[in-house]
């Protein structure tokens, strides 16, 4: 479901670089400190069918996991996705990642920032436990500031309660 909407967005090679994280930055580009924003070219992201490309990580493996209301516990589905993320990251040590934690709009601003941090941290800890080096993984919380889906019901909220592993350019890229 989530993958679908992402795939629809990444229609062309140029669109790839613009849309690799549609939920990530405002039009003004808030991600000055984010690893990949400026460094990854369309070519660098590559083909979702190429197992060595970040696009494969993002779309074929799945770059995000979802959470229940007010929770940061990883579901079995989430653990499965993260297990594959960890395998990929372990096979591609040149890449770093920033894990973004998000919340739905049904909460106060400060609490949601803290909740997003909890979710990002849960993902980070899981990946570390799967052997990914801690110094390759940063976390950031967006709270409820960057919803992916904009309706005000559970269909959207469930997509917004997420943690997204955003691949950035490592030293070798």
């Amino acid at each position: 479901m989530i993958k679908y909407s992402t795939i629809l967005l990444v229609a062309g090679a140029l669109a790839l670089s613009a849309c690799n994280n549609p939920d990530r930055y405002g039009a003004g580009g808030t991600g000055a400190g984010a690893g990949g924003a400026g460094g990854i070219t369309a070519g660098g992201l590559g083909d979702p069918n190429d197992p060595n490309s970040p696009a494969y990580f993002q779309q074929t493996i799945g770059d995000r996991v979802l959470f229940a209301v007010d929770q940061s516990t990883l579901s079995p589905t989430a653990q499965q996705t993260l297990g594959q993320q960890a395998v990929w990251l372990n096979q591609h040590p040149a890449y770093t990642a920033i894990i973004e934690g998000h919340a739905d709009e049904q909460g106060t601003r400060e609490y949601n920032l803290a909740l997003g941090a909890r979710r990002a941290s849960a993902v980070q800890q899981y990946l570390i436990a799967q052997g990914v080096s801690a110094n390759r993984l940063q976390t950031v919380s967006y709270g409820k500031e960057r919803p992916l889906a904009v309706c005000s019901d559970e269909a959207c909220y469930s997509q917004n309660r997420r943690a997204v592993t955003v691949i950035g350019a490592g030293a070798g890229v």
Partner: protein
Amino acid sequence: MTFIRSLCLALAVAGLAAPAALAQSGPLRIEITDGVIEPLPFAAPTFIAENPGAAEVAQSISQVVAADLVGTGLFREIPPSAFISPVTSFDAPVAYADWKAINAQALITGAVALGSDGRVNVKFRLHDVFSGAELGKGMQFGGGQGDWRRIAHKVADQIYSRITGEGAYFDSRVVYVSESGPKDQRLKRLAIMDYDGANVQYLTDSSTIVLAPRFSPAGDRVLYTSFETGFPRIKLMDIATVSSRALAELSGNMTFAPRFSPDGGTVVFSLEQGGNTDIYSMQLSSGQSRQLTNSPSIETAPSFSPDGSQIVFESDRSGNQQLYVMPAGGGEPTRISFGEGRYGTPVWSPRGDMIAFTKQNAGRFHIGVMRTDGSEERLLTASFLDEGPTWAPNGRVIMFTRESAGAGGAAQLFSVDISGRNLRAVPMDGSASDPAWSPLLP
């Protein structure tokens, strides 16, 4: 009950502000009966222009004074078409019978002079029509041409305070987040305006997400959270120079939810490390920080009591968001919220007697107030999403963010009296969130 009664008392003490000579003739006052107020009718003839050049600014000042008073919901303006006798001179005796005949309980007279150097001088008198005498003494305010709105607010503040016995609040500002753009890519920038939405000035551009600005006690600096580095970090801005700096380098991922101590020397805030959020304080002079809570749960939204001795904050240590009070130096917190639902964003009243909060229950959001021990909880609003209360300098009015639902949802600033009356949108262009009310301006 005590709460309501004290409110009634507070509003009914207008007579105390009046000279003793007025006492026997029935003081001008606002009465609350069971929380319902009959707005007090007043007449405010356009202030007299003392020289030809002053006509326009006199008109503008008169309008702002009336708008301030009417905006409280406590006053009703009698339209000039009902006036029997014109006021042609500031110093001529007032024909009280003519104002009594149209049931004006208060009469405001004023005069405006505009100097050749652009200085504005405003005189006013407040009359208790039924007593046939002035309420308090006539006063004058002077300022530069750009200060005319502030002068008008100061006149209205005097009138409001004399009649209600409450502290003033019109001559104040609000710092907030101006919002634009679609819901999934919202652009946010800090802005500051007069309490009534006038004189908007932008303090940042919209290149990065900014959140929840908070005034210093002197109103000259603002703490806020910025994503400028890619990660939420607290910044401190000097308003006059519009220059910002990072609060300090701290270990941890994210710093947010800052507020000043009442003496302005300390900042209390949240710091997140490894997914866990606790409350810290930092001395601004030394940059030294201190951890005030140490719990695996989320501790955030700290707010000092006005005497600086205590901090109210929210924590989900019980399983969901609730309000707690702890000593300002840290220590065992006491839970104060026990109703149904979740409680967040507590803010101590500048009077020290109440705490405003956001409550989430059964899919609705409310702004509410309670005593500092959690008793006498009262919800003032209800909507799809109300959050983030901030107190007017006199502790009588609360401003907050109200956001509408759906893909086209947008945030707006609203204000409400602590009695729950007079809910109104702050008149302004565009969307806005996260208001913080300044102290009364000097």
